[in-house]
């Protein structure tokens, strides 16, 4: 079984979307996907989170993305994630340090979060990955 591991360190849609696209594509291709949400990435796991925009550096292109999302040519990130989660092959970990930094608790996070984890736990889950990326 192939495996992809991703560290998601941004909650902005231009980082979140590629991360979730890779995870879901892997999952529907029969791969396992291990995702660790850390620093600002953790904010994407808050209940009811909706991305408010793109990273500041790319603000000039935001309208392009808004249009593509509105027309449906680019799917909504949450819909893509749900398709991946339905396979049962995606596991989502919330960084314990970031959780503490934001003063959040597990009950503040979406129910699809598998567990709160630290670096050693994620390393163990990610060990032996065929593809591993840090997305920030």
């Amino acid at each position, binding site marked *: 079984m192939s495996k992809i591991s991703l560290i998601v360190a941004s909650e902005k849609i231009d980082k979140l979307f590629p991360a979730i696209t890779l995870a879901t594509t892997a999952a529907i291709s029969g791969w396992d996907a291990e995702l660790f949400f850390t620093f600002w990435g953790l904010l994407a796991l808050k209940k009811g989170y909706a991305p408010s925009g793109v990273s500041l550096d790319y603000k000039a292109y935001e309208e392009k993305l808004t249009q593509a999302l509105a027309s449906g040519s*680019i799917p909504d990130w949450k819909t893509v994630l749900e398709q991946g989660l339905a396979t049962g092959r995606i596991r989502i970990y919330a960084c314990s340090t970031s959780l503490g930094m934001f003063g959040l608790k597990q009950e503040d996070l979406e129910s699809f979060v598998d567990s709160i984890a630290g670096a050693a736990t994620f390393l163990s889950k990610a060990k032996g990955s065929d593809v591993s990326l840090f997305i920030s």
Partner: protein
Amino acid sequence: MNADITVDAKFKSCPGPLIALADTVSKAQPGQVVKLLATDPAAPSDVKEWALSTGHTVLAMEKSGEVYEIFVGVSG
């Protein structure tokens, strides 16, 4: 080539076409043929790789104007 089910994913960007195809194939019966309609230029290569990973078979690929027609045989 005739298809049992058609998935219309025209004008959808990656990963839209593959997600739509995978969803339909997961609900289809073994032996059925699913036809994917896509305009995403990555679709032919993506479907080929996905089929290699999942064991389904790409039976044929055609292009009609800007639209790819990709026929996938559902494995058991």
